[in-house]
């Protein structure tokens, strides 16, 4: 199941057997989402982005 990534417009692949709360990431930009499975099996993505680590040199 492919859902549009809110960050980059890419495709987030949500496994067919995904369970609510499962973390999935966008292949193109790496942003992470929490899968929210609705009663009729609808799939919604809630951003699971914590503050990105800073690798400041």
């Amino acid at each position, binding site marked *: 199941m492919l859902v549009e990534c809110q960050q980059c417009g890419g495709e987030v692949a949500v496994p067919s057997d995904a369970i609510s709360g499962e973390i999935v990431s966008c292949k*193109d930009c790496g942003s992470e989402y929490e899968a929210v499975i609705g009663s009729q099996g609808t799939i919604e993505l809630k951003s699971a*982005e914590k503050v*990105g680590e800073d690798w400041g040199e």
Partner: protein
Amino acid sequence: MLNVSVIGGSGYVGGELTRLITLHPSAKLQATYSRSHAGKYVHSVHPNLRGIVDMTFTGEDPVRLAQSSDVTFLSLPHGQSSKLIPEMIKTNTVLIDLGADFRLKDKDAYIRWYNYQHPSPDLLKEFVYGLPELHRAEIKKSRRVAVPGCMATSAILSLVPLVREGIAGTGPIIVDAKVGSSGSGGKPSLATHFSERYGVVRIYKPAGHRHTAEIIQELSNIRNSKVDVSMSAHSVNMVRGIETTSHVMSSNIPSLKDIWKAYRSFYADEPFVRLVRDLHGANKYPDPKFTVGSNFADVGFDTDPEAKRVIAIGALDNLVKGAAGNAVQCMNIMLGFDETEGLKSPPLHPV
């Protein structure tokens, strides 16, 4: 099987062409010409090819070699190919020049950037600028290609989607390039003497770098009006690799999502351009370290709205996508092979 000759086989680009040809299922190295190393085994100059290429360099006349070759690659120092090409062009070999002599369309640009009176300006229109991502259709119909410079390739590929959408080109574009030592070739000098070259961040060309001419030519071509581009080039502590950070001064700075759309729509089907912009990890943006040995050009971007600046980032292996790999890609297009033929090796990591 295609008979292929490399004219200028002893340099790093000549060695890389030879390496890639051994990986090409439909091409065979017929001859590798080197005046200074004639009679010597290829592996005496390219130790990596010991046991793989059992051949000596030839000193035979390059035009005769071209006559008997389906494809002739020229990887000679600047100004050399324009001495041979007027004769070679009369043969029916497919000509791929990795030098700068036939990259520019405007002969006056050679005076301006190379301080060079081009000996056969009428032949300039015979050659297509060998960047498949921009000129695939023209390359397909042609038999004469001039392979772009390594820094130009990285800068152009990272900037094209922005120019096309009118994001880049309204204001100045400043390209800040970082280059590995293999870019300056195999001839030793004080500048490449280990104790002097090791660990430098040496801005060897703050202004007027020759590759700027190609970047101006190609970006202006897309925008249909002159684009203001300038470049500074630095030698850094790496052997293979180019990184270009292009500072795009722009009054029109769209959202990151729109910029993703611009890059994705231009590069979605390209086999050798990868979009790299990751929210996590140590490697969020393009870095030549992850392209070494492959024909990939990694392209990425960021925005700096307060400063009215978009940052376009490019990274590639200067010997592969920046030279020999791009040359083989153009050969594949001209000869009707799958574009990735002989170019399928993933980058090495770590290296």
